């Protein structure tokens, strides 16, 4: 099993303003790219999964686990957390609307078990989706999910606000790095 990937500040977006589920998933894709986990194309593949299979990625009330198959656009396993200022519908019959989008990138189908176990341990407490959605710092999100900010477990400061993010803007600052 591989170590659990960290959740750096660059992979956390709090209070994003998005118009629809695609923009919400794209926000998670930008966070994965910014944190160095994926190339920017990965966001398109996460959207394509939902277009192909439907909103099954909304796996609990208010929570979407956006992800795609392993691929060349995944540089390393990674996780991103996006909270939405206003919830959006993904089209799930029971679990809409979504307030928290978890972006997941894995490099192969076998090696992400420890990672998923950590997520399950956190989200098996049904109050955690609400707590994450109300979080005001990346550090608070990490604490709720039991994740570190870097591979060596370090912690750092400022959280990242989504600002005027929305439709359209593609490149995260670290895109294509």
């Amino acid at each position: 099993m591989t170590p659990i990937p960290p959740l750096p500040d660059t992979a956390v977006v709090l209070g994003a303003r998005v118009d629809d589920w695609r923009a919400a998933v794209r926000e998670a894709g930008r966070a994965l790219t910014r944190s160095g986990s994926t190339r920017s194309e990965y966001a398109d593949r996460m959207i394509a999964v939902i277009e192909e299979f439907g909103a099954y990625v909304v796996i609990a009330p208010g929570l979407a686990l956006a992800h795609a198959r392993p691929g060349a656009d995944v540089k390393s396993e990674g996780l991103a957390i996006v909270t939405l200022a206003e919830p959006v519908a993904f089209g799930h019959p029971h679990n809409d609307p979504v307030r928290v989008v978890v972006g997941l990138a894995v490099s192969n189908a076998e090696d992400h078990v420890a990672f998923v176990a950590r997520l399950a341990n956190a989200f098996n407490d049904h109050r955690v989706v609400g707590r994450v959605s109300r979080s005001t710092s990346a550090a608070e999100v990490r604490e709720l999910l039991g994740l570190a900010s870097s591979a060596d477990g370090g912690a750092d400061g400022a959280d990242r606000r989504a600002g005027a993010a929305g439709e359209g803007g593609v490149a995260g600052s670290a895109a294509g790095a």
Partner: protein
Amino acid sequence: MRIVAVCGVGVGTSAILKMNAERALDRLGLAAEVSASDLGNVAGAAADAQVILTSSELAGAVRAAVGRSFAEIIEVGNYFDVEEISAKLEASLG
């Protein structure tokens, strides 16, 4: 007894479902082997399974993919609700 957890791409969501199905089985005191599969491989993966766990969103596609399988398809609404999964497995297997 075999159980297959199915999602669209076979990583992430099916792994969470598999893990929480194992927790549910523990809670029920039932022994079963739980595997994860993507939709494309479900027919093979579920050939000798008794139960297929999946999202209500995918249930129709799973049903079409497995055809005349004996496996019962159980739709899970909340993948993190071990009680829901336990209750549904108990109703199916108990």
